[in-house]
């Protein structure tokens, strides 16, 4: 099963294979080009950028652009670089990921091991919610955050991301726990364990694979989010994606492409890092998320 069609038939002609590899490599270059350009541009001086060309290597490597992007570039009225926003993102992404994953795990546990009348219908209703364009909840949410007193705050962003991440995290854990035999819970109940004991002592120890998938998925989603960030936060509370966009669009003086690129890489680095370290789980999360269709 692991091999393709040609594993199943006689090998094709040599020419065909060469053409195939050429095509694959061409595509690889197409996918790599932007990353390459980003990295090289971020290491160039502005002069180098103006006189050289897009894919040329830097005449002289400098990390000035990185320093500026991190600590002094202007993202709107503030000019403190991305470091604050990077920290912002980190401070709300981590709790939001943790909370939504934990709740998702509990929900999945109940939906498989402790089903009650109506639980499936509730879940389906929640699941359909994954499909709505979030524009349709922005206005009420802005109001609600105001009522709750957490507008334009880290807490507000955590809240929003947890609420709208629940459907996915619940789905992940539910689909995983469905394959855990319910007899396990039954045996534990007879052994005298209660709801929480069973969860902590028996179900959770089985869950690392799905926890990894879920955490990666949530981390990528929330770190990369722009819509909620731009609508529900402002000024120095903004997450990094919003700050990056502001930085690029702040049109004061010359356009500093090298700073833009350094900033873009900084904004993309955490998720890229996760992808490189745990690509397998990343893909699993993507395809698991796709199963919902």
């Amino acid at each position: 099963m692991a091999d393709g069609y040609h594993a199943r038939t006689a090998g094709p002609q040599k020419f065909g294979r060469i053409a195939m590899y050429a095509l694959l490599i061409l595509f690889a270059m197409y996918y790599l080009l932007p990353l390459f350009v980003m990295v090289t541009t971020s290491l160039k001086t502005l002069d180098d950028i103006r006189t050289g060309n897009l894919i040329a290597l830097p005449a002289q490597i400098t990390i000035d652009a990185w320093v500026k992007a991190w600590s002094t570039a202007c993202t709107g009225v503030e000019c403190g670089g991305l470091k604050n926003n990077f920290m912002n993102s980190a401070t709300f992404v981590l709790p939001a990921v943790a909370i939504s994953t934990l709740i998702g795990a509990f929900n999945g546990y109940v939906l498989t091991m402790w089903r009650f009348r109506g639980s499936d219908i509730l879940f389906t209703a929640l699941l359909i919610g994954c499909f709505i364009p979030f524009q349709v909840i922005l206005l009420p949410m802005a109001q609600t955050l105001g009522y709750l007193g957490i507008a334009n705050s880290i807490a507000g962003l955590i809240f929003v991301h947890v609420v709208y991440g629940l459907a996915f995290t619940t789905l992940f854990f539910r689909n995983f726990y469905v394959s855990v035999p319910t007899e396990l819970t039954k045996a534990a109940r007879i052994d005298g364990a209660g709801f929480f004991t069973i969860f902590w002592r028996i179900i959770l120890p089985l869950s690392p694979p799905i926890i990894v998938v879920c955490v990666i998925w949530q981390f990528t989603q929330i770190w990369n989010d722009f819509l909620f960030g731009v609508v529900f936060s402002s000024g120095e509370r903004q997450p990094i994606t919003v700050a990056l966009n502001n930085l690029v669009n702040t049109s004061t003086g010359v356009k500093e492409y090298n700073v833009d690129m350094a900033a873009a890489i900084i904004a993309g680095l955490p998720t890229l890092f996760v992808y490189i370290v745990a690509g397998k789980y990343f893909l699993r999360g993507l395809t698991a998320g796709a199963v919902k269709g």
Partner: protein
Amino acid sequence: MNTTKAAPAKLVSPPKRVADYIESALPKIVLGPTLLVGLIFIYGFIAWTGWLSFTDSRLLPRYELVGFVQYITLFENERWWTSLKNLGVFGSLFILVCLGTGLLLAILLDQRIRAEGFLRAIYLYPMALSFIVTGTAWRWILNPGLGLQNFVRQLGFETFTFDWIVTPGMSIYAVVIAGAWQSSGFVMALFLAGLRGIDDSIIKAAQVDGAGPVRIYTSIIIPSLRPVFFSSIIILSHMAIKAFDLVMALTGGGPGFSSDLPAIFMYTFAFNRNQIGLGAASAMIMLMTVVAIIVPMIYSETRKAHRG
């Protein structure tokens, strides 16, 4: 029966303890609130937005109904029409390009390729980047002054022009390029998983019947990927309708508002122009578009699944 039946013993019924009541209600106590919050924040908010769309809300929400005024205003707005048209163009091209590249790459990768894992990782990494980062990168690459156009001209093609990003009417195609770059690897991964899942024996049977490789692909393998097409299209159309960050970063909706999408229209009017009612109306139309596209697809697909 031979066995003597035991005389029914006197049964005692121990009282049910409070702790047991709580224990048995725990699943509901745990699941109920989060699901309910989720549901209120989805369905309740949809209703809320729906209500707002029938009001004359501007900077602040107001709740007196004024009928379809906002919807009428909306559809008299040229910018809204542009954004709808752009959504059509962007959505269909984005889906087609992603499906095409995804399928092609998946088929190529399925040919017992050396370094398959490495290539796959390369095709897929853009998916880890946000649309904002993607947009920023492509904005630099596609800018005519110093980007790709300049590069090709330096190669000697003096008249080469590639300035979609700053050309009204073309900028939406630039968005397609960046979007497809970001998402096609994902579709490739879905197709690849689909290809690997195809039963060998079907292909062997076709070979025995004398079908050539092309024939096998066109009449057996690709048709059997139908479910993958289905879920890819659902996901991609969903992405297209929600696409907001990509356009913001790449073109900012410009030049002018020539690459606006409904999502940007909604954001601009609801949050920058203090036209909450109008913004709500556009959001409702977006929701209805999603429903109009996705519900029939799911419906027809499940019906086929039942028949098949």
